[in-house]
């Protein structure tokens, strides 16, 4: 029987149901039976929608996230993009996606030459272990992409 799990409150797992310790890597927070979750292909499609058929370059983007999230509902994330942030050469937008969340979009951050540094820090929800993808659109049309894997575990005895 699939139990219903709410996004913002983990159900109490029957501790006797799963034998053996070790890190569990599947945390299905926020899944409603029958609803689809995003796939890496969805993120690819979302990126294509933004930038057309342009190739994405690697480098310049630094995604700072924990290796293992203590709780999938509040995972700190910082993104920094290497750029002079001058009027002629700056980061316009950074889009963030989660490959395996119920929806792939997380947020878009719009910078200006007045930003000084293309840096943003926030906290996001992650339904399970997955890649977080950052796509940076530059003022000259170039697009950079980076991804990082964050492990999300479900607890043992939340209380």
């Amino acid at each position, binding site marked *: 029987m699939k139990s219903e799990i709410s996004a*913002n*409150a*983990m159900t*109490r*797992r029957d*501790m*006797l149901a*799963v*034998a*053996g*310790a*070790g*890190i*569990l890597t599947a945390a299905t927070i926020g899944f409603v039976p029958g609803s689809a979750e995003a796939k890496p292909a969805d993120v690819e499609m979302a990126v294509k929608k933004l930038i057309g058929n342009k190739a994405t370059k690697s480098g310049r983007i630094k995604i700072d996230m*924990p290796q*293992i*999230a*203590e*709780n999938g*509902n*509040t*995972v*700190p994330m910082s993104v920094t993009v290497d750029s002079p942030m001058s009027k002629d050469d700056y980061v316009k937008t950074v889009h963030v996606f989660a490959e395996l969340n119920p929806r792939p979009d997380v947020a878009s951050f719009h910078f200006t030459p007045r930003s000084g540094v293309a840096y943003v820090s926030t*906290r996001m929800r992650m339904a399970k272990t997955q890649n977080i993808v950052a796509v940076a659109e530059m003022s000259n049309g170039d697009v950079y992409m980076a991804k990082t894997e964050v492990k999300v*575990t*479900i*607890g*043992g*005895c*939340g*209380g």
Partner: protein
Amino acid sequence: MRKKLVGGILTLGILFGAGGVAMSDHVKGYDTYTTKDGRHSGYVYAAKETQAIQDDDLGNPAYLWLDYGEELWSKVEGEAGKSCASCHKDAATSMKTAGASYPKFDKASGKPINIEQRINKCRTENMKAKAFKYESRELLSSTIYVRNQSRGLPMSVKVDGDMKPFFEKGKAFYEKRRGLLDMACKHCHQDNAGNMIRANLLSEGMSNGFPTYRLKWQKPGSLHRRFRGCNKQVRATPFGYGSDEYTNLEVYLGWRARGIKVEAPAVRN
């Protein structure tokens, strides 16, 4: 009885597996949150990202409640036409040690009362206002605001004299097995602190950070809420908010945390 014992041991075996994550993985702030005799605040067991959320006075979400608590401090309520500030003036002075020393013995009722109960006692008796409900925004905010005035002070709940019988009751509760899983508080928080319970790292169950913003709750919650959750987790019937059982347990926990700095409002998983 034997079946129960075997079942209990098997359960413990399944639950407290795999040696666990070394606490040194979570070492930031080790000296500040640890007593000389080696007892630790829950801070030390939290992931460094979670510690960072607590350490950021702006970014600690519980401060959203603290701001409201500060507002409530000066709000006139009740038929007596008073606010907390009318009698207690500046909280930073009048409440300086409250967070570190409650629960305290209340002569009128002949038993200990904690901060939540003290706030409501003041409201109903002195302000002639309605009591705040447990886990309401008002009570959480007010409790956080009061307790936060003691931030950085070592916990120092008095457990002798009038408090002794309640301390003993709290200690007995802590050590008594309960629920379908037949476990006592001490099995996790004393015998297995530092070990993993599936994917959670067990802390020593200290009360110095409450009301705490738990990531799981996505809001702050009281110590009694945590007790209820713990009791439900071992499939025991939880006691009521503000119950004698939980208040006595709070006294005992206050002693367990002696010397550990008040962190209210803390951030934990």
